[in-house]
Protein backbone atom coordinates (compact mmCIF):
# COMPACT_ATOMS: atom_id res chain seq x y z
CA UNK A 1 0.00 0.00 0.00
CA UNK A 2 1.34 3.40 -0.98
CA UNK A 3 1.56 6.08 1.67
CA UNK A 4 -0.03 8.64 -0.63
CA UNK A 5 -1.59 8.56 -4.05
CA UNK A 6 -3.54 10.95 -6.19
CA UNK A 7 -5.99 9.92 -8.89
CA UNK A 8 -6.59 12.13 -11.91
CA UNK A 9 -5.89 15.24 -9.82
CA UNK A 10 -6.66 18.44 -11.67
CA UNK A 11 -6.35 22.15 -10.93
CA UNK A 12 -6.83 25.00 -13.36
CA UNK A 13 -6.15 28.70 -12.98
CA UNK A 14 -8.18 30.22 -15.81
CA UNK A 15 -6.92 28.62 -19.01
CA UNK A 16 -3.77 27.28 -17.37
CA UNK A 17 -3.73 23.60 -16.39
CA UNK A 18 -1.51 23.93 -13.30
CA UNK A 19 -2.05 20.28 -12.39
CA UNK A 20 -3.40 18.15 -15.21
CA UNK A 21 -4.82 14.69 -14.39
CA UNK A 22 -1.89 13.78 -12.17
CA UNK A 23 -1.51 10.28 -10.71
CA UNK A 24 1.20 10.80 -8.14
CA UNK A 25 2.39 8.08 -5.76
CA UNK A 26 4.60 8.31 -2.68
CA UNK A 27 5.89 5.09 -1.10
CA UNK A 28 6.44 4.66 2.62
CA UNK A 29 9.89 5.66 3.89
CA UNK A 30 11.35 7.13 0.72
CA UNK A 31 12.91 10.52 0.08
CA UNK A 32 11.35 11.62 -3.18
CA UNK A 33 12.26 14.70 -5.16
CA UNK A 34 9.72 16.54 -7.25
CA UNK A 35 11.44 18.52 -9.98
CA UNK A 36 10.49 20.57 -13.00
CA UNK A 37 10.94 24.00 -14.47
CA UNK A 38 9.15 27.05 -13.04
CA UNK A 39 5.39 26.75 -13.58
CA UNK A 40 5.54 22.97 -13.98
CA UNK A 41 2.93 22.53 -11.22
CA UNK A 42 5.10 21.18 -8.40
CA UNK A 43 4.07 23.66 -5.72
CA UNK A 44 0.43 23.56 -6.86
CA UNK A 45 0.48 19.77 -6.48
CA UNK A 46 1.87 20.10 -2.93
CA UNK A 47 -0.68 22.82 -2.16
CA UNK A 48 -3.47 20.49 -3.27
CA UNK A 49 -2.19 17.58 -1.20
CA UNK A 50 -1.54 19.69 1.91
CA UNK A 51 -4.96 21.37 1.72
CA UNK A 52 -3.95 24.93 0.86
CA UNK A 53 -5.84 24.58 -2.44
CA UNK A 54 -8.88 22.52 -3.42
CA UNK A 55 -8.71 20.43 -6.60
CA UNK A 56 -11.16 20.95 -9.45
CA UNK A 57 -11.43 17.19 -9.80
CA UNK A 58 -9.64 14.00 -8.78
CA UNK A 59 -8.95 12.28 -5.49
CA UNK A 60 -6.20 12.23 -2.87
CA UNK A 61 -5.65 9.17 -0.69
CA UNK A 62 -3.42 8.92 2.37
CA UNK A 63 -2.94 5.27 3.38
CA UNK A 64 -6.07 4.47 1.35
CA UNK A 65 -8.13 7.06 3.25
CA UNK A 66 -9.79 9.63 0.99
CA UNK A 67 -8.61 13.03 2.27
CA UNK A 68 -9.72 15.10 -0.73
CA UNK A 69 -12.40 17.01 1.13
CA UNK A 70 -10.49 17.34 4.43
CA UNK A 71 -9.39 20.76 5.71
CA UNK A 72 -5.81 21.62 6.61
CA UNK A 73 -6.32 20.79 10.29
CA UNK A 74 -7.60 17.28 9.59
CA UNK A 75 -4.83 16.57 7.08
CA UNK A 76 -2.26 17.54 9.71
CA UNK A 77 -3.93 15.18 12.18
CA UNK A 78 -3.84 12.51 9.47
CA UNK A 79 -0.05 12.94 9.26
CA UNK A 80 0.77 15.47 6.53
CA UNK A 81 3.11 18.39 7.25
CA UNK A 82 4.93 20.84 5.07
CA UNK A 83 7.45 23.65 4.92
CA UNK A 84 7.28 26.54 2.48
CA UNK A 85 9.28 27.87 -0.47
CA UNK A 86 9.52 31.29 1.18
CA UNK A 87 10.44 30.80 4.82
CA UNK A 88 7.23 30.87 6.82
CA UNK A 89 7.96 31.30 10.50
CA UNK A 90 6.54 33.10 13.50
CA UNK A 91 9.08 35.90 13.30
CA UNK A 92 8.55 37.54 16.69
CA UNK A 93 8.65 34.22 18.55
CA UNK A 94 11.91 32.61 19.60
CA UNK A 95 13.19 29.52 17.82
CA UNK A 96 12.14 27.52 20.88
CA UNK A 97 8.60 28.93 20.86
CA UNK A 98 8.27 28.25 17.12
CA UNK A 99 8.90 24.56 17.74
CA UNK A 100 7.13 24.39 21.12
CA UNK A 101 3.91 25.76 19.62
CA UNK A 102 3.90 22.92 17.09
CA UNK A 103 4.30 20.39 19.90
CA UNK A 104 1.56 22.05 21.98
CA UNK A 105 -0.66 21.88 18.91
CA UNK A 106 0.16 18.21 18.27
CA UNK A 107 -0.60 17.37 21.90
CA UNK A 108 -3.87 19.35 21.87
CA UNK A 109 -2.63 21.79 24.52
CA UNK A 110 -3.00 25.07 22.63
CA UNK A 111 -6.39 25.81 24.16
CA UNK A 112 -4.87 25.99 27.64
CA UNK A 113 -5.35 29.58 28.74
CA UNK A 114 -4.03 29.56 32.26
CA UNK A 115 -0.94 27.33 32.17
CA UNK A 116 2.50 28.85 31.65
CA UNK A 117 3.92 27.54 28.39
CA UNK A 118 7.53 27.39 29.62
CA UNK A 119 6.53 25.40 32.69
CA UNK A 120 5.57 22.44 30.50
CA UNK A 121 8.84 20.55 30.88
CA UNK A 122 7.78 17.74 28.56
CA UNK A 123 7.13 20.12 25.66
CA UNK A 124 10.17 22.29 26.34
CA UNK A 125 12.46 19.25 26.49
CA UNK A 126 11.07 17.88 23.23
CA UNK A 127 11.38 21.29 21.54
CA UNK A 128 15.00 21.52 22.67
CA UNK A 129 15.65 18.01 21.33
CA UNK A 130 14.19 19.02 17.94
CA UNK A 131 16.34 22.17 17.86
CA UNK A 132 19.33 20.02 18.81
CA UNK A 133 18.64 17.62 15.94
CA UNK A 134 18.61 20.54 13.51
CA UNK A 135 21.75 22.11 15.01
CA UNK A 136 19.87 25.09 16.43
CA UNK A 137 20.19 24.35 20.15
CA UNK A 138 22.36 27.42 20.78
CA UNK A 139 19.85 29.68 19.04
CA UNK A 140 16.78 28.73 21.12
CA UNK A 141 16.28 32.18 22.57
CA UNK A 142 16.68 34.15 19.31
CA UNK A 143 13.50 35.45 17.64
CA UNK A 144 13.06 33.71 14.30
CA UNK A 145 13.53 36.99 12.46
CA UNK A 146 17.03 37.30 13.93
CA UNK A 147 18.30 34.00 12.52
CA UNK A 148 20.51 33.65 9.44
CA UNK A 149 18.83 32.42 6.23
CA UNK A 150 20.25 28.89 6.51
CA UNK A 151 19.11 28.69 10.13
CA UNK A 152 15.66 29.98 9.19
CA UNK A 153 15.36 27.26 6.55
CA UNK A 154 16.32 24.63 9.11
CA UNK A 155 13.88 26.05 11.65
CA UNK A 156 11.16 26.07 8.99
CA UNK A 157 11.68 22.33 8.50
CA UNK A 158 12.07 21.74 12.26
CA UNK A 159 8.65 23.32 12.88
CA UNK A 160 7.03 20.94 10.37
CA UNK A 161 9.08 17.99 11.68
CA UNK A 162 7.89 18.63 15.26
CA UNK A 163 4.39 17.60 14.14
CA UNK A 164 5.84 14.06 13.80
CA UNK A 165 4.21 13.60 10.40
CA UNK A 166 4.07 10.45 8.29
CA UNK A 167 4.62 12.53 5.17
CA UNK A 168 6.65 15.72 5.06
CA UNK A 169 6.67 18.08 2.07
CA UNK A 170 9.71 20.35 1.83
CA UNK A 171 9.27 23.13 -0.70
CA UNK A 172 12.72 24.24 -1.88
CA UNK A 173 14.55 23.72 1.41
CA UNK A 174 17.78 25.21 0.01
CA UNK A 175 16.43 28.24 -1.83
CA UNK A 176 18.12 31.39 -0.60
CA UNK A 177 20.79 29.35 1.18
CA UNK A 178 24.37 30.02 0.14
CA UNK A 179 26.04 27.33 -2.01
CA UNK A 180 28.49 26.67 0.81
CA UNK A 181 25.67 25.98 3.31
CA UNK A 182 23.42 23.91 1.03
CA UNK A 183 25.20 20.63 1.78
CA UNK A 184 25.04 21.21 5.54
CA UNK A 185 21.33 22.11 5.41
CA UNK A 186 20.44 19.06 3.29
CA UNK A 187 22.68 16.71 5.31
CA UNK A 188 20.89 17.84 8.47
CA UNK A 189 17.39 17.60 7.00
CA UNK A 190 17.80 14.20 5.37
CA UNK A 191 19.59 12.78 8.39
CA UNK A 192 16.75 13.84 10.72
CA UNK A 193 14.07 12.68 8.28
CA UNK A 194 15.64 9.26 7.68
CA UNK A 195 16.39 8.64 11.36
CA UNK A 196 12.79 9.59 12.20
CA UNK A 197 11.48 7.16 9.53
CA UNK A 198 9.57 10.01 7.90
CA UNK A 199 8.63 9.93 4.24
CA UNK A 200 9.74 13.15 2.59
CA UNK A 201 8.84 14.82 -0.69
CA UNK A 202 11.31 17.55 -1.64
CA UNK A 203 10.65 20.16 -4.28
CA UNK A 204 14.04 21.36 -5.43
CA UNK A 205 15.71 23.16 -8.34
CA UNK A 206 19.31 22.38 -7.46
CA UNK A 207 20.07 19.19 -9.42
CA UNK A 208 23.15 18.41 -7.32
CA UNK A 209 20.93 18.33 -4.25
CA UNK A 210 18.25 16.30 -6.04
CA UNK A 211 20.58 13.61 -7.37
CA UNK A 212 22.58 13.39 -4.13
CA UNK A 213 19.77 13.00 -1.62
CA UNK A 214 16.81 11.35 -3.42
CA UNK A 215 15.70 7.71 -3.52
CA UNK A 216 13.32 8.48 -6.37
CA UNK A 217 12.64 11.48 -8.60
CA UNK A 218 9.39 12.57 -10.21
CA UNK A 219 9.65 15.12 -13.02
CA UNK A 220 6.74 17.43 -13.81
CA UNK A 221 6.23 19.45 -16.96
CA UNK A 222 3.29 21.70 -17.83
CA UNK A 223 1.13 20.28 -15.04
CA UNK A 224 1.70 16.61 -15.88
CA UNK A 225 4.17 13.94 -14.77
CA UNK A 226 6.88 13.59 -17.41
CA UNK A 227 9.05 10.92 -15.78
CA UNK A 228 9.34 8.87 -12.61
CA UNK A 229 12.35 6.80 -11.57
CA UNK A 230 15.54 6.41 -9.62
CA UNK A 231 18.20 9.13 -9.94
CA UNK A 232 20.10 6.97 -12.43
CA UNK A 233 16.96 6.40 -14.55
CA UNK A 234 16.10 10.09 -14.55
CA UNK A 235 19.66 11.04 -15.44
CA UNK A 236 19.45 8.74 -18.45
CA UNK A 237 15.99 9.87 -19.54
CA UNK A 238 16.20 11.69 -22.88
CA UNK A 239 12.84 13.46 -22.49
CA UNK A 240 13.88 14.86 -19.11
CA UNK A 241 17.23 16.00 -20.40
CA UNK A 242 15.63 17.76 -23.33
CA UNK A 243 12.78 19.33 -21.41
CA UNK A 244 14.44 20.20 -18.15
CA UNK A 245 18.06 20.75 -19.06
CA UNK A 246 17.57 21.85 -22.63
CA UNK A 247 20.29 19.47 -23.86
CA UNK A 248 20.18 16.01 -25.44
CA UNK A 249 21.55 13.09 -23.36
CA UNK A 250 24.99 11.81 -24.14
CA UNK A 251 24.90 8.56 -26.12
Amino acid at each position, binding site marked *: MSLLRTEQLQKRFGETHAVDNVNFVVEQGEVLSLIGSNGAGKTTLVNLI*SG*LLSPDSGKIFLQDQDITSMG*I*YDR*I*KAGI*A*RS*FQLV*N*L*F*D*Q*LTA*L*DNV*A*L*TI*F*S*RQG*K*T*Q*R*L*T*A*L*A*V*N*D*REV*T*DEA*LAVLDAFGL*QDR*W*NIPAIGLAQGERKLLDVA*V*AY*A*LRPHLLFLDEPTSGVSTRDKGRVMDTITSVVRSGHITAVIIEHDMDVVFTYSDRIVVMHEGAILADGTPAEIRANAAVATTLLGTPTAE
Partner: protein
Amino acid sequence: MTSANIAFRSLKPLRLLLAVSPIAVLLLCIPYLTNPYQTLILAYGLIMAIAALGFNLLLGYTGLLSFGHSAYFGVGAYAVAFMVKYLHVRSMELFVLGGLLATIVLTALFGVICVRYTRIFFSILTLALSQVLWSLAYKFFWVTGGTDGLRVPTPSLVAGMVDAAKLSYGGKVVTYYYYVLFFFFLSVGLMWLIVHSPFGTALQAIRDNETRAAFVGVRVQRFRWLAFLVSGIFTGLAGILWVPLNGLTTPDILVWTFSGRIVFFTVLGGFRSFVGPILGAVVFNYLETYAISATVYWQFVLGAVLVVLVLVMPTGLVGLLSRLAYAVRRAT
Protein backbone atom coordinates in the same frame (compact mmCIF):
# COMPACT_ATOMS: atom_id res chain seq x y z
CA MET B 1 20.46 24.13 28.34
CA THR B 2 17.73 22.53 30.46
CA SER B 3 14.03 23.27 30.49
CA ALA B 4 14.32 24.61 34.07
CA ASN B 5 16.97 27.10 32.95
CA ILE B 6 14.79 28.13 30.05
CA ALA B 7 11.77 28.74 32.30
CA PHE B 8 13.94 30.93 34.51
CA ARG B 9 15.59 32.82 31.65
CA SER B 10 12.40 33.32 29.68
CA LEU B 11 10.22 34.69 32.43
CA LYS B 12 12.91 36.31 34.58
CA PRO B 13 10.79 35.69 37.73
CA LEU B 14 13.06 37.58 40.10
CA ARG B 15 13.25 40.65 37.88
CA LEU B 16 9.52 40.51 37.39
CA LEU B 17 8.84 40.29 41.11
CA LEU B 18 11.29 43.08 41.85
CA ALA B 19 9.69 45.31 39.25
CA VAL B 20 6.10 44.62 40.24
CA SER B 21 6.31 44.70 44.06
CA PRO B 22 7.06 48.42 44.53
CA ILE B 23 4.33 49.36 42.06
CA ALA B 24 1.82 47.11 43.84
CA VAL B 25 2.78 48.58 47.23
CA LEU B 26 2.55 52.11 45.82
CA LEU B 27 -0.92 51.44 44.43
CA LEU B 28 -2.02 50.05 47.79
CA CYS B 29 -0.70 53.15 49.58
CA ILE B 30 -2.04 55.78 47.16
CA PRO B 31 -5.18 56.65 49.22
CA TYR B 32 -2.90 57.44 52.18
CA LEU B 33 -0.44 59.47 50.11
CA THR B 34 -2.84 61.70 48.27
CA ASN B 35 -6.35 63.22 48.41
CA PRO B 36 -9.61 61.48 47.37
CA TYR B 37 -9.74 63.39 44.06
CA GLN B 38 -6.37 62.01 42.96
CA THR B 39 -7.41 58.57 44.15
CA LEU B 40 -10.59 58.88 42.09
CA ILE B 41 -8.64 59.79 38.93
CA LEU B 42 -6.35 56.84 39.45
CA ALA B 43 -9.36 54.54 39.95
CA TYR B 44 -10.65 55.66 36.55
CA GLY B 45 -7.19 55.08 35.10
CA LEU B 46 -7.01 51.54 36.49
CA ILE B 47 -10.45 50.73 35.08
CA MET B 48 -9.36 51.95 31.65
CA ALA B 49 -6.19 49.88 32.06
CA ILE B 50 -8.35 46.75 32.42
CA ALA B 51 -10.15 47.72 29.18
CA ALA B 52 -6.80 48.31 27.47
CA LEU B 53 -5.46 44.94 28.63
CA GLY B 54 -8.42 43.28 26.98
CA PHE B 55 -8.13 45.36 23.84
CA ASN B 56 -4.43 44.61 23.49
CA LEU B 57 -5.00 40.86 23.52
CA LEU B 58 -6.49 41.45 20.09
CA LEU B 59 -4.19 44.19 18.79
CA GLY B 60 -0.81 43.35 20.29
CA TYR B 61 -1.08 39.57 20.55
CA THR B 62 -3.49 38.53 17.78
CA GLY B 63 -2.87 41.31 15.26
CA LEU B 64 -6.50 42.45 15.00
CA LEU B 65 -7.33 46.15 15.31
CA SER B 66 -10.81 46.58 16.76
CA PHE B 67 -12.57 49.91 16.47
CA GLY B 68 -15.60 48.55 18.29
CA HIS B 69 -14.50 47.94 21.86
CA SER B 70 -16.89 50.64 23.06
CA ALA B 71 -19.60 47.98 22.48
CA TYR B 72 -18.20 45.62 25.14
CA PHE B 73 -17.40 48.42 27.58
CA GLY B 74 -20.90 49.78 26.99
CA VAL B 75 -22.74 46.49 27.29
CA GLY B 76 -21.08 45.92 30.68
CA ALA B 77 -22.10 49.40 31.85
CA TYR B 78 -25.64 49.20 30.45
CA ALA B 79 -26.18 45.70 31.87
CA VAL B 80 -25.44 47.15 35.32
CA ALA B 81 -27.77 50.11 34.69
CA PHE B 82 -30.57 47.78 33.52
CA MET B 83 -30.10 45.63 36.65
CA VAL B 84 -30.53 48.76 38.76
CA LYS B 85 -33.53 50.11 36.83
CA TYR B 86 -35.47 46.93 36.15
CA LEU B 87 -34.33 44.45 38.82
CA HIS B 88 -33.47 46.95 41.59
CA VAL B 89 -30.18 45.19 42.24
CA ARG B 90 -27.70 47.07 44.47
CA SER B 91 -24.96 44.48 45.00
CA MET B 92 -21.71 45.11 43.13
CA GLU B 93 -20.98 41.38 42.98
CA LEU B 94 -24.32 40.79 41.21
CA PHE B 95 -23.46 43.66 38.87
CA VAL B 96 -20.21 41.91 38.01
CA LEU B 97 -21.93 38.56 37.43
CA GLY B 98 -24.81 39.98 35.40
CA GLY B 99 -22.58 42.38 33.47
CA LEU B 100 -20.10 39.66 32.57
CA LEU B 101 -22.90 37.37 31.41
CA ALA B 102 -24.28 40.08 29.12
CA THR B 103 -20.77 40.84 27.83
CA ILE B 104 -20.06 37.18 27.12
CA VAL B 105 -23.28 36.77 25.12
CA LEU B 106 -22.73 39.93 23.06
CA THR B 107 -19.00 39.38 22.48
CA ALA B 108 -19.52 35.75 21.49
CA LEU B 109 -22.11 36.81 18.94
CA PHE B 110 -20.14 39.75 17.53
CA GLY B 111 -17.01 37.59 17.49
CA VAL B 112 -18.65 34.95 15.28
CA ILE B 113 -19.37 37.69 12.74
CA CYS B 114 -16.10 39.64 12.97
CA VAL B 115 -13.35 36.99 13.11
CA ARG B 116 -14.20 35.77 9.62
CA TYR B 117 -12.34 38.86 8.43
CA THR B 118 -8.97 40.46 9.11
CA ARG B 119 -7.21 43.81 8.62
CA ILE B 120 -9.37 46.78 7.58
CA PHE B 121 -12.46 44.60 7.07
CA PHE B 122 -12.29 43.41 10.66
CA SER B 123 -11.80 46.96 11.94
CA ILE B 124 -14.74 48.36 9.96
CA LEU B 125 -17.00 45.49 10.95
CA THR B 126 -16.27 45.96 14.67
CA LEU B 127 -16.87 49.69 14.28
CA ALA B 128 -20.15 49.15 12.44
CA LEU B 129 -21.49 46.71 15.03
CA SER B 130 -20.63 49.05 17.91
CA GLN B 131 -22.47 51.84 16.06
CA VAL B 132 -25.54 49.59 15.84
CA LEU B 133 -25.50 49.30 19.64
CA TRP B 134 -24.98 53.05 19.97
CA SER B 135 -27.97 53.79 17.73
CA LEU B 136 -30.14 51.36 19.74
CA ALA B 137 -29.13 53.05 23.00
CA TYR B 138 -29.73 56.45 21.40
CA LYS B 139 -33.12 55.72 19.81
CA PHE B 140 -34.79 53.36 22.32
CA PHE B 141 -34.84 56.07 24.98
CA TRP B 142 -37.82 54.58 26.85
CA VAL B 143 -35.58 51.58 27.62
CA THR B 144 -32.12 53.13 27.74
CA GLY B 145 -32.89 56.69 28.82
CA GLY B 146 -31.57 57.99 25.47
CA THR B 147 -29.09 60.83 25.76
CA ASP B 148 -30.11 61.37 29.40
CA GLY B 149 -28.74 57.93 30.13
CA LEU B 150 -29.42 55.74 33.15
CA ARG B 151 -28.34 56.50 36.70
CA VAL B 152 -26.44 53.94 38.77
CA PRO B 153 -26.29 54.69 42.49
CA THR B 154 -23.37 53.66 44.68
CA PRO B 155 -23.73 49.90 45.21
CA SER B 156 -23.10 47.76 48.28
CA LEU B 157 -19.73 46.00 48.16
CA VAL B 158 -18.34 42.65 49.32
CA ALA B 159 -21.65 40.76 49.44
CA GLY B 160 -23.43 43.64 51.17
CA MET B 161 -20.89 43.91 54.01
CA VAL B 162 -19.87 47.42 52.93
CA ASP B 163 -22.65 49.86 52.11
CA ALA B 164 -20.57 52.45 50.27
CA ALA B 165 -23.60 54.75 49.86
CA LYS B 166 -23.53 55.51 53.60
CA LEU B 167 -19.87 56.51 53.62
CA SER B 168 -18.48 60.03 53.29
CA TYR B 169 -17.24 61.17 49.84
CA GLY B 170 -13.64 60.34 50.76
CA GLY B 171 -14.56 57.01 52.31
CA LYS B 172 -16.64 56.09 49.28
CA VAL B 173 -13.79 56.89 46.89
CA VAL B 174 -11.17 55.01 48.90
CA THR B 175 -13.39 51.95 49.41
CA TYR B 176 -14.28 51.78 45.74
CA TYR B 177 -10.64 52.37 44.79
CA TYR B 178 -9.61 49.23 46.66
CA TYR B 179 -12.46 47.35 45.02
CA VAL B 180 -11.20 48.43 41.61
CA LEU B 181 -7.61 47.68 42.62
CA PHE B 182 -8.57 44.10 43.50
CA PHE B 183 -10.05 43.57 40.02
CA PHE B 184 -7.07 45.36 38.46
CA PHE B 185 -4.58 43.00 40.13
CA LEU B 186 -6.77 40.04 39.19
CA SER B 187 -7.02 41.19 35.57
CA VAL B 188 -3.28 41.86 35.21
CA GLY B 189 -2.40 38.46 36.73
CA LEU B 190 -4.92 36.62 34.59
CA MET B 191 -3.94 38.38 31.38
CA TRP B 192 -0.24 37.80 32.07
CA LEU B 193 -0.97 34.11 32.47
CA ILE B 194 -3.05 34.05 29.27
CA VAL B 195 -0.42 35.71 27.08
CA HIS B 196 2.29 33.38 28.44
CA SER B 197 0.14 30.26 28.00
CA PRO B 198 0.18 27.92 24.99
CA PHE B 199 -2.98 29.74 23.91
CA GLY B 200 -1.13 33.08 24.07
CA THR B 201 1.72 31.62 22.00
CA ALA B 202 -0.80 30.40 19.43
CA LEU B 203 -2.32 33.89 19.20
CA GLN B 204 1.11 35.43 18.59
CA ALA B 205 1.73 32.80 15.93
CA ILE B 206 -1.52 33.79 14.21
CA ARG B 207 -0.45 37.43 14.41
CA ASP B 208 2.94 36.67 12.84
CA ASN B 209 1.85 34.23 10.16
CA GLU B 210 -1.67 32.86 10.00
CA THR B 211 -1.00 30.49 7.09
CA ARG B 212 1.82 28.80 8.94
CA ALA B 213 -0.21 28.76 12.15
CA ALA B 214 -2.88 26.78 10.28
CA PHE B 215 -0.16 24.40 9.05
CA VAL B 216 1.01 23.60 12.57
CA GLY B 217 -2.55 22.69 13.54
CA VAL B 218 -3.83 25.94 15.06
CA ARG B 219 -7.49 26.48 14.20
CA VAL B 220 -7.04 30.12 13.30
CA GLN B 221 -10.66 31.27 13.21
CA ARG B 222 -11.58 29.47 16.43
CA PHE B 223 -8.58 30.98 18.23
CA ARG B 224 -9.38 34.45 16.94
CA TRP B 225 -12.92 34.03 18.25
CA LEU B 226 -11.62 32.92 21.66
CA ALA B 227 -9.25 35.90 21.78
CA PHE B 228 -12.14 38.17 20.78
CA LEU B 229 -14.26 36.72 23.58
CA VAL B 230 -11.58 37.06 26.26
CA SER B 231 -10.78 40.57 25.03
CA GLY B 232 -14.44 41.57 25.23
CA ILE B 233 -14.84 40.11 28.72
CA PHE B 234 -11.95 42.22 30.09
CA THR B 235 -13.33 45.35 28.42
CA GLY B 236 -16.84 44.54 29.65
CA LEU B 237 -15.49 44.18 33.20
CA ALA B 238 -14.02 47.67 32.87
CA GLY B 239 -17.46 48.99 31.87
CA ILE B 240 -19.06 47.22 34.85
CA LEU B 241 -16.55 48.78 37.28
CA TRP B 242 -16.73 52.18 35.61
CA VAL B 243 -20.48 52.81 35.77
CA PRO B 244 -21.00 52.93 39.58
CA LEU B 245 -17.98 55.23 39.82
CA ASN B 246 -19.39 57.54 37.15
CA GLY B 247 -22.94 57.23 38.49
CA LEU B 248 -24.45 57.47 35.02
CA THR B 249 -24.20 55.73 31.67
CA THR B 250 -25.08 57.41 28.38
CA PRO B 251 -24.76 56.41 24.70
CA ASP B 252 -21.46 58.35 24.63
CA ILE B 253 -19.62 55.23 25.82
CA LEU B 254 -20.98 53.22 22.90
CA VAL B 255 -20.01 55.60 20.13
CA TRP B 256 -16.98 54.80 17.96
CA THR B 257 -14.91 57.70 19.34
CA PHE B 258 -14.88 55.91 22.70
CA SER B 259 -13.34 52.91 20.92
CA GLY B 260 -10.84 55.39 19.49
CA ARG B 261 -9.88 56.39 23.04
CA ILE B 262 -9.07 52.74 23.87
CA VAL B 263 -6.95 52.53 20.72
CA PHE B 264 -5.30 55.85 21.65
CA PHE B 265 -4.14 54.92 25.11
CA THR B 266 -3.03 51.45 24.03
CA VAL B 267 -0.85 53.00 21.33
CA LEU B 268 0.28 55.70 23.77
CA GLY B 269 1.63 53.08 26.17
CA GLY B 270 2.92 50.74 23.45
CA PHE B 271 0.94 47.77 22.14
CA ARG B 272 4.04 45.62 21.64
CA SER B 273 4.53 45.18 25.38
CA PHE B 274 2.40 43.78 28.16
CA VAL B 275 2.61 46.85 30.42
CA GLY B 276 2.26 49.40 27.61
CA PRO B 277 -1.56 49.52 27.53
CA ILE B 278 -1.71 49.72 31.36
CA LEU B 279 0.70 52.65 31.44
CA GLY B 280 -1.00 54.30 28.47
CA ALA B 281 -4.46 54.09 30.04
CA VAL B 282 -3.34 55.65 33.33
CA VAL B 283 -1.29 58.39 31.65
CA PHE B 284 -4.05 59.16 29.13
CA ASN B 285 -6.57 59.48 31.93
CA TYR B 286 -4.41 62.06 33.72
CA LEU B 287 -3.60 63.80 30.43
CA GLU B 288 -7.26 64.11 29.48
CA THR B 289 -8.35 65.19 32.97
CA TYR B 290 -5.75 67.96 33.20
CA ALA B 291 -6.10 69.02 29.56
CA ILE B 292 -9.86 69.47 30.04
CA SER B 293 -9.36 71.53 33.20
CA ALA B 294 -6.54 73.60 31.63
CA THR B 295 -7.98 74.59 28.27
CA VAL B 296 -11.13 74.54 26.18
CA TYR B 297 -8.89 73.30 23.36
CA TRP B 298 -8.16 70.05 25.18
CA GLN B 299 -9.02 67.96 22.11
CA PHE B 300 -6.34 69.89 20.22
CA VAL B 301 -3.85 68.93 22.94
CA LEU B 302 -4.79 65.26 22.70
CA GLY B 303 -4.62 65.41 18.90
CA ALA B 304 -1.14 66.94 19.07
CA VAL B 305 -0.04 64.18 21.45
CA LEU B 306 -1.33 61.57 19.02
CA VAL B 307 0.58 63.12 16.10
CA VAL B 308 3.81 63.28 18.12
CA LEU B 309 3.22 59.73 19.27
CA VAL B 310 2.90 58.32 15.78
CA LEU B 311 5.81 60.33 14.35
CA VAL B 312 8.32 60.21 17.19
CA MET B 313 7.36 57.35 19.50
CA PRO B 314 5.87 54.50 17.46
CA THR B 315 6.72 52.07 20.25
CA GLY B 316 4.86 54.21 22.81
CA LEU B 317 5.89 55.22 26.29
CA VAL B 318 7.27 51.79 27.11
CA GLY B 319 9.49 51.90 24.03
CA LEU B 320 10.68 55.39 24.98
CA LEU B 321 11.41 54.33 28.57
CA SER B 322 13.26 51.24 27.32
CA ARG B 323 15.42 53.39 25.04
CA LEU B 324 16.14 55.84 27.87
CA ALA B 325 17.06 53.01 30.25
CA TYR B 326 19.36 51.53 27.60
CA ALA B 327 21.03 54.93 27.04
CA VAL B 328 21.55 55.39 30.79
CA ARG B 329 23.04 51.90 31.12
CA ARG B 330 25.43 52.59 28.25
CA ALA B 331 26.43 55.96 29.67
CA THR B 332 27.24 54.44 33.05
